[in-house]
């Protein structure tokens, strides 16, 4: 459904995206994972026909994102990063106008608007101005509009950033429902657990390049050891481990067997390895302040 070949985007001498090559099948959810500045949003902007690539090609549903953008736009929908609904409209007006702009008849647009607002728990506030809604509700208005459009490919660029746990899960439900409908979803996020929970396949990016691409469980398998012993504080203990990650006074030991004795006087967590450990152990993921 989505094919990228050596895709690149340059701003002056700076390559925001370089040699990006991957394929995603129809109905799959692609999680694009990476720190701020990894190139996630640039990738989405190129694929949603907003930004011209400097090199390479990309196709969605067989349409070239550059030369066949008009045909492609009928198939896609996007919630851009940091986007907000128009503040003086009501949720009803915002979703309705978006559907009218997508070409739905007034009757059909009204029906879809009502259904989508109910789905996202926004029906009771449908006639309140967006300006008076909470941040989570505003984001849900955007997702409700996209959801009602029934596009074949949906791009969600960090849709849950800044949301509370309830609103975040409502967005997660929407993504699950999109998957159930057979929609191809591109979800960018820097929340590792979100990518793990929702994605069929994860594209790991940093500095504009693809570091890895695989289903989340395969990425987790790449983490050495079977368990993680996470210790905060000066432990004075060195475990026999397959790998160690140090973050300040926090040490993460990746071990095959659990140690018989744990250090006293330190905070210790023993847990199974996760996708977060993959990110911590690949070493290619820079800290945001680096």
């Amino acid at each position: 459904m989505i094919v990228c070949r050596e895709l690149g985007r340059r701003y002056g001498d700076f390559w925001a995206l370089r040699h990006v090559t991957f394929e995603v099948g129809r109905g799959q959810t692609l999680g694009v994972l990476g720190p701020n500045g990894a190139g996630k949003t640039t990738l989405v902007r190129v694929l949603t026909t907003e930004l011209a690539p400097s090199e390479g090609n990309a196709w969605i549903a067989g349409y070239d994102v550059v030369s066949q953008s008009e045909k492609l736009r009928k198939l896609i929908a996007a919630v851009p990063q940091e986007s907000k609904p128009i503040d003086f409209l009501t949720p009803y007006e915002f979703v309705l106008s978006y559907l009218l702009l997508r070409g739905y008849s007034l009757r059909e647009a009204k029906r879809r608007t009502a259904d989508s607002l109910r789905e996202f728990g926004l029906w009771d506030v449908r006639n309140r101005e967006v300006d008076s809604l909470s941040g989570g509700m505003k984001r849900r208005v955007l997702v409700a509009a996209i959801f009602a459009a029934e596009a074949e490919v949906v791009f969600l660029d960090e849709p849950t950033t800044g949301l509370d746990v309830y609103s975040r899960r409502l967005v997660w439900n929407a993504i699950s429902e999109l998957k159930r409908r057979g929609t191809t979803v591109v979800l960018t996020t820097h929340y590792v657990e979100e990518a793990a929970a929702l994605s069929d396949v994860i594209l790991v990016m940093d500095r504009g390049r693809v570091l890895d691409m695989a289903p989340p469980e395969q990425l987790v398998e790449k983490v050495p050891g079977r368990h993680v012993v996470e210790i905060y504080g000066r432990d004075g203990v060195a475990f026999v481990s397959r790998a160690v990650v140090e973050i300040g006074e926090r040490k993460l030991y990746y071990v095959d067997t659990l140690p018989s004795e744990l250090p006293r006087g330190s905070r210790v967590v023993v847990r199974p390895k996760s996708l977060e450990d993959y990110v911590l152990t690949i070493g290619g993921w820079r800290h945001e302040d680096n």
Partner: protein
Amino acid sequence: MKTIRDALVIAWVNGWIAAVRGWVWVVSSAVGPISFLVILTVYGGLSGLKWGLVGGLVWTIASNGIFLIGDATYYRVVIKYQSMLTAAPVSPVGYALGLALSAFIFAAPTLAVYLTAMAWLGMQFLTASTLYALTTLWLASAGVGFTLSGFVRHMRYAWSLPQILTVVFTVGAPVYYSAYLLPIPHLGVLLPTGAAGILIQNSTGIAAYDAGLLTAAAAALAMQSTLGVVFLLKLAQWRQR
């Protein structure tokens, strides 16, 4: 057809709903020309009132077009609404025309007040010349607003720039005074507001210009509005290079 429909939806959202719900903006856009109207009436009596009405008509159309800089920049830079529409089958031309139409809707209540006052004073404004001047001025100023919005990167400039431009366009051109007061009267047609002012002043009888200046004003407006539309359509491309 889809382009016209897109324009009407955008105009409904950004013009009708915005004006009804944010009526204070409609009032605020009328305050500037009304203050000129009051001062001109105090100092110039009936003649000043007529100059103030004609000037206010031009100012209202021009300022609402130029203030598209704010709307277009807000949708593109702050709330990313334009990006959302890029990833949808929305005509960029329809979007641009819709914003231009919304500027006209925003100006409509103020225009109605001015036109009613002009009718009450017996001023001739339902002439081909006046309608031509107002239509071309709307297209030219909307083109200026939309074109300049493409260059604005920060919202703080998007609110201040239109205020500066509006003053330049309405005080720097013969909108509230005769073009004959300029060292070279033909300089008055350089800005669309001046060209429209010359045609409307002549049509309503508050100034009498020679045929050469009127022809120059009409020709300038034709060129300025065509350029405005060309830039508006040219810039109304979703994709950034």
